[in-house]
């Protein structure tokens, strides 16, 4: 089962189509994501960026009336044939656009995932909580009040808590869906520093509506528009004066979108 190209390609998407009822939002896209790269995904609203992420961890199934065709493989395994979908989701950390502090204590916000996976020893859980909060650059601010409510934190702190939660199940892939739209620039830069650190340990999919953010962080960038890939290339090429597709330059330079 283990062959060399499969290690190179961490996620492989082939002919992915997704429709909500009658409306098709992804029109058969194919691309792959390499291990330990940061893939930037840019594109205007309604171009299918979030839907793509939800197909990868199969939370798309919670939306009624969706139809998916094509294949997505993670580590060579077709996600739609995975028996233990919960293990698949633990392999993938997901950070939503708006920070979601669950109405639990800060500690339990982070311990939720390992607990769901069956870990119960308090020592182990505490170690994970500390490690993830440190990774998300939140530990120093909350270490003295781990038992207060996660929902009482500020927006930027909650977003870092969300990232800590996404890291708590030790994912190999981290998906960030426009993580910076609800937080201030300073926090955004702190999280970007965190991502630069994390890229050594995991594959990161960075969906962003800030093209400059993709430029700062991504190894390769994909321009998704109206459910189709306009261009996927190294970030240098996408943001150069001459990307392959003129629409890419127009979007990056803010002519439309």
């Amino acid at each position: 089962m283990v062959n060399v190209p499969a290690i190179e390609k961490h996620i492989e998407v082939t002919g992915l189509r997704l429709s909500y009822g009658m409306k098709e939002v992804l029109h058969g896209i194919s691309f792959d994501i390499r291990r330990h790269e940061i893939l930037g995904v840019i594109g205007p609203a309604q171009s299918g960026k979030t839907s793509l992420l939800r197909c990868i961890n199969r939370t798309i199934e919670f939306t009624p009336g969706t139809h998916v065709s094509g294949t997505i493989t993670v580590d060579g395994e077709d996600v739609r044939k995975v028996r233990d979908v919960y293990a698949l989701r633990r392999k993938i950390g997901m950070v939503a656009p708006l920070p979601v502090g669950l109405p639990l204590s800060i500690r339990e916000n982070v311990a939720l995932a390992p607990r769901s996976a069956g870990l119960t020893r308090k020592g182990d859980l505490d170690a994970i909580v500390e490690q993830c909060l440190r990774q998300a650059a939140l530990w120093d601010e909350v270490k003295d009040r781990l038992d207060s409510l996660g929902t009482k934190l500020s927006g930027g702190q909650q977003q870092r808590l969300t990232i800590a939660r996404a890291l708590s199940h030790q994912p190999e892939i981290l998906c960030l869906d426009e993580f910076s739209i609800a937080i201030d620039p300073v926090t955004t830069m702190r999280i970007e520093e965190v991502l630069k650190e994390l890229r050594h340990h995991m594959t990161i999919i960075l969906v962003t509506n800030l093209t400059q953010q993709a430029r700062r962080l991504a190894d390769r960038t994909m321009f998704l528009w109206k459910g189709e890939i306009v261009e996927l290339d190294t970030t240098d090429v996408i943001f150069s004066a001459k990307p392959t597709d003129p629409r890419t330059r127009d979007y990056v330079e803010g002519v439309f979108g």
Partner: protein
Amino acid sequence: MNASTGHAMFGETPPVRRKLRQEALAQWVFGAMAAAMIVPLLLIVGYLVVRAAPSLNLEFLLEVPKRGMTEGGIWPAFVGTLYLVFLSLAFSAPIGILAAVYLNEYARDNWFNRVINLAVINLAGVPSIVHALFGLGAFVYAARFGYSIISASLTLAIMTLPVIIAATREALASVPRSFREACWNVGATRWQTIWAVVLPNSISGILTGIILEVSRAAGETAPVMFTGVVFFKAVERGDLFPYYLNEQCMALSMHLYTISTQVPGVKESIPFATAIVLLALVLMVNAAAISLRVYLRSRKKW
């Protein structure tokens, strides 16, 4: 006000004055209608208290009816009502909550679940006398529970079930979807999500819905009259456990009906005092529901 002051833009022109008049009138009319709600309640309570005054004391509550129910108290009926209410909720609350969790959290939109939804809605619209007949046929005869507290409670349970389901669903639906998605994203199952996040944050709404059904179960006469409540039952004064569950019992609503219409020569204040006890029981339960809601809301976590 005055154009000459230089604030003509915000001055009162005739159309503005007309608008303000309409606004004042609307507020007055709507306010009066809302205030009118208080009047019937005050009249009912006031009238009852005045007429019941001679019998209103603790003795009346604890004493058993005497001299062919023309004198004495209402203890057997009071305890009977408590029996019926608690037993019926013991049946309907667990079933209702679990059914609502299924319908709100698990059920997909298919014909089977649409049929269930339709059934719940229609069950809520069935008149209580029809529930009574159903209870008579199903529990008293078919299930051979006889005329008993069990039969009456089950009948009340079926009557209260749809409202408990509706209240629970509403409470569950008020938990934001983003909380569920956050849990699913970290690999929690639906049940883990429900247990860790959804139920703890909807429990206040669920409890309120259940407690409000207490007052309905306590007040209904028809369903219990057909299935397990009797005219008279001899009970010790102040006895907390006077009934076996396979026996018939007395109940406040039924007792009020019989002493008002069926028994000649009842002391005049007794029916009114009985009504006061029934009303107080219901209002106290409602007050408990409201304070519980206020308390749990104050601990709201987002």
